[in-house]
Structure formats: structure tokens, C-alpha cells
């Protein structure tokens, strides 16, 4: 196995055993990143020399007995919304030309303190305001979307071009690209990971979290992001765990392949000892209204100055949303905030009866680049962004933690994902369930087979 193929936990174990140096690992991942750059384009910028120097430094510290923990010497990509002192934060936008961050974000500082090695900045849909990340291609099929807005982060991890990555999630922007590229994504509870120094799309919906190859890796990164010491997830079965299975919303308007894969996963959770409980998802009629009612005016407020000074530098899709958001009525914003109170109250009540809710992460696998809408058998047509946000938004609105785990592939060989939504402060429960499920899959943690082409045997 080449070093870039190692999971975070695998690489950390090899480094701890003295079988692999941070420099060897970083060099291998950088070479892989260079190999896939032309086809997949996950990075805004790679900083080869700085990364190699950081890896050498990490190796010297280890040799001197000054290990910093499991992330020490592990190479990562940061979504290019995350400030690193002295580096540009492009937000994948021309609006940010010439930008240099004055300070480290809290996230960047904590990862540096944990000894992680920054490879570079990964592409985002412009200012995180979109679900496709058009600059970047899906790691499994280059004619498909990467998903977004943390598309570069997901593709880098799926292709072995980063051992882990950091993304942000305002309406699914960690979980959607993670699911579409066959990797794990965790949106932690709102406020658990500090957003200071991370370019905001919508303050009350923004979250920062990891994209990784395995659930264990996500738990390792979460510990560093929260400044906690890593406590290993419990092994063993799921006896006593109450798993809520939605009877509405989450299995409506999903492809048959998504439903089959997620229901198979639900069956595996039951086989692991979990008790399945039917749950009714509250207030689903208002999910999109609350999401838009919060995000649209907050995003326009975030861009107030540059929308007036350099509007022509925004992409067309983002500019019109920001402009229309300037016309938003304050009464509608307040109504969305109050509706969120009701929705959160109902979701917390739901968690009195279950420990975790299991659901599809996305209603369909990655669509073709340029595809604008998704059609359902009952004649319903929705835009691609609306389709991808639909199943993610409840966890942004309520602030509840949500984990995405790969659950296999569709007939075209494209990855599918399930979501494990935890109750208030329920990261560890979601991670425990995801980890137990993951151990039932021989393909857990695997990379995309070859940059940009699905396995021929699975293509239809």
C-alpha cells in the first residue's frame, strides 16, 4: 500500500510505529495530488515546499519525543474559506483577488497545534453559495459534479490527494459532496467547532467539520477541532441503541437505488443490535422556507460591501441570489427565526424516543456536470441544488449533528451515502453507529478507483 492510500488512523499508526515518516507520507500525498490535479482540480493552490518543510519539522519533533497526537504529521486540505495567516482565502471567487489573511482561523490554529501538515486550499462553490463546485470534478466520474460547496475537500480525500480535509456546511455542504464522492463527512452541532476566521455564508446555519475516509478518522479530527483529547469510539454491537427510521420526508423523492442502499444499511444496524423505531419528521413542509428565510438575507448581509463595489466579479448564479437577498423583508427573516424555534423544539422532542435518526444523505448520486434539474416519477421537478439541500437542511436549521457514511454505489458505480443525525450534543452517538455500520463493509475507507473514471464492471 502506498502512503497516500492510508487512512488517517492507518497513517498515524504507521508513523507511531516508526514505519513511515511525515515527510514520506506528505511527499506521497503531494505526488498523488499532482497526478489528479489535471482531471479533478480539487485544489485552488498546493503549497509543496511549505508542506514538505512542515512535514520535516513534524518528523524532527517526533524523533525528539515531542509527539502531538494522532494528527501529527498528517497532511490535510482546508476548504478555501478557512483563513491561514499570510495566505489568501480565495473563496474560489475573483472578488477575493489579492486577499491575504491577517490571522489564523481557530480551526487552522488548532490543526497546526495538533501537528497536521497543510497541503493547500481546496475549491469551494463560490463563497459556499451553491451545491456543485463547478471548478472541480467528481472523483469517481469526471463528467459528474463534485457536489458542494466543499467539493474540493471531498474530491481531494476521495482521490487520495489529502489524508483528510476540512469543509463547511450551511445547507449540506460537507455531507453532500462527501456522499457524492464516497467519503465520510461530519457536520457537528452548531457552535461546537468555532467559525472565527472562516468566511461566513450564513452565520446561524454555518458549521465547520471534517471530511475523511472513515468514521474513526472523522472522530480523530473532531477531537482536534474541538481541542479535546481523542477518546476511542466503543467497539462492539449496537445493543440498546434506538434508531429512528423516518416514515416521511427522507425516503420521498429519492432514487430506488438510494432507498435500497440506505434500507440495507438500516438492516445492518438492526443486525448489530439496534432497535428500529418509526419516526415522523416534523414540519417538513417548512424546511426550505426556513432554510431560505435564514440563509438568503444573512448571505446578502455578509456580502453587503462587495456587492456594491465589485458586483461584476461574482459568478452569475451567486450575484443574482445576493442581489435578490437585498430585497428580503425583515418580517420574513424574523418569521424564519421563530419557525426554527418550533422546528428545533419538535426535533428535540423526537429525540426523546430515539438516539439517532438514519436517513439518505442525498436523494440521488452525483448528477452530470451542467445538469440543472432532477425529475421524479410523480412529475415533480426540482433544481439540482434544491434536491441536494432537501435532506441536509433540517440538521442545519436545528443545529443537530449529522454524519454521512458511504453505503455503496448505484448501477453506474457512483457512491451513495446515508445520514446519521444525532440528538442535541449527540456527535458521539452518531459516530458510534456509523463506525459499527462501517465495520460491516469490506470496502470501508477505500479510495475512488481511478481518478475520474468509475469501475467499468459496474458501469451500465
Amino acid at each position, binding site marked *: 500500500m502506498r502512503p497516500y492510500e492510508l487512512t488517517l488512523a492507518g497513517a498515524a499508526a504507521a508513523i507511531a510505529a516508526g514505519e513511515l515518516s511525515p515527510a514520506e507520507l506528505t511527499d506521497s500525498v503531494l505526488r498523488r495530488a499532482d497526478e489528479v490535479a489535471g482531471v479533478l482540480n480539487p485544489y485552488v493552490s498546493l503549497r509543496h515546499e511549505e508542506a514538505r518543510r512542515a512535514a520535516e519539522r513534524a518528523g524532527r519533533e517526533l524523533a525528539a519525543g515531542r509527539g502531538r497526537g494522532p494528527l501529527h504529521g498528517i497532511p490535510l486540505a482546508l476548504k478555501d474559506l478557512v483563513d491561514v495567516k499570510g495566505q489568501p482565502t480565495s473563496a474560489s471567487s475573483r472578488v477575493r483577488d489579492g486577499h491575504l489573511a491577517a490571522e489564523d482561523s481557530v480551526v487552522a490554529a488548532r490543526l497546526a497545534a495538533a501537528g497536521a501538515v497543510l497541503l493547500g486550499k481546496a475549491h469551494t462553490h463560490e463563497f459556499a453559495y451553491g451545491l456543485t463546485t463547478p471548478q472541480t470534478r467528481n472523483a469517481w466520474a469526471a463528467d459528474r459534479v463534485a457536489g458542494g460547496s466543499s467539493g474540493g475537500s471531498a474530491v481531494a480525500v476521495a482521490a487520495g490527494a489529502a489524508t483528510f480535509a476540512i469543509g463547511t456546511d450551511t445547507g449540506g455542504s460537507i455531507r453532500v459532496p462527501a456522499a457524492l464522492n464516497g467519503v465520510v463527512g461530519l457536520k457537528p452541532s452548531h457552535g461546537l467547532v468555532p467559525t472565527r476566521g472562516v468566511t461566513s455564508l450564513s452565520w446561524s446555519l454555518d458549521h465547520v467539520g471534517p471530511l475523511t475516509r472513515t468514521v474513526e478518522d472523522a472522530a480523530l479530527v473532531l477531537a482536534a477541532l474541538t481541542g479535546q483529547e481523542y477518546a476511542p469510539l466503543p467497539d462492539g454491537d449496537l445493543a440498546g441503541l434506538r434508531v429512528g427510521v423516518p416514515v416521511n420526508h427522507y425516503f420521498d423523492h429519492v432514487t430506488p437505488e438510494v432507498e435500497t442502499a440506505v434500507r440495507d444499511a438500516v438492516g445492518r444496524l438492526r443486525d448489530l443490535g439496534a432497535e428500529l423505531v418509526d419516526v415522523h419528521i416534523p414540519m417538513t413542509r417548512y424546511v426550505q422556507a426556513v432554510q431560505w428565510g435564514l440563509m*438568503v438575507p444573512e448571505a446578502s448581509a455578509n456580502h453587503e460591501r462587495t456587492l456594491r463595489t465589485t458586483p461584476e466579479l461574482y459568478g452569475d448564479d451567486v450575484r443574482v441570489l445576493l442581489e435578490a437577498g437585498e*430585497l428580503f423583508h425583515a418580517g420574513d427573516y424574523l*418569521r424564519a427565526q421563530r*419557525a426554527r424555534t418550533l422546528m428545533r423544539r419538535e426535533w428535540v422532542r423526537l429525540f426523546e424516543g430515539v438516539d439517532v435518526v438514519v436517513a439518505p444523505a442525498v436523494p440521488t448520486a452525483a448528477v452530470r456536470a451542467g445538469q440543472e434539474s432532477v425529475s421524479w416519477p410523480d412529475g415533480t421537478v426540482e433544481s439540482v441544488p434544491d434536491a441536494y439541500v432537501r435532506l441536509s437542511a433540517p440538521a442545519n436549521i436545528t443545529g443537530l449533528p449529522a454524519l454521512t457514511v458511504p453505503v455503496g454505489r448505484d448501477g453506474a458505480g457512483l457512491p451513495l451515502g446515508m445520514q446519521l443525525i444525532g440528538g442535541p*450534543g*449527540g456527535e458521539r452517538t452518531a459516530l458510534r453507529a456509523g463506525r459499527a455500520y462501517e465495520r460491516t463493509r469490506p470496502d470501508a475507507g477505500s479510495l475512488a478507483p481511478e481518478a475520474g473514471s468509475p469501475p467499468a464492471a459496474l458501469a451500465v
Partner: protein
Amino acid sequence: MSSLEFGPRDAARWAARAGLPLPDERLDLVAATARHIHAVVATLRELDLTGVEPTPAGAEVRDAAV
């Protein structure tokens, strides 16, 4: 405001009130987008929000610590 009534002239007037310069050639597109957004968020008017306060950001973490 009915979403059907919100046209380019309304967009121009509202943009001016917000202090946002909006060139004439953008008014149709922005008005159409604003109508669509309004149609989505207008469903919230169905809810009885009497006595309901906005949830402060970060409430989840505070709850979890209790």
C-alpha cells in the same frame, strides 16, 4: 406584497431603498429571483408563531452541556 405583483419596477424601488445600485438590465432577473424566494418563504405565514421567540445561535451546544 403578492409574489405575482413584484416586478422589475418594484425591484428597482426596493434596491434603491436598500442602497444597492441595480442596473436596468438586471431588474427582470432579480425580480424573478426575488419572486421565487418570496413564494418559498411565504409558506411560513401559515404558522401560528404567537409567543415563539427566535432561537439564539449556539443553543444546541449549551443544551448539550446541561
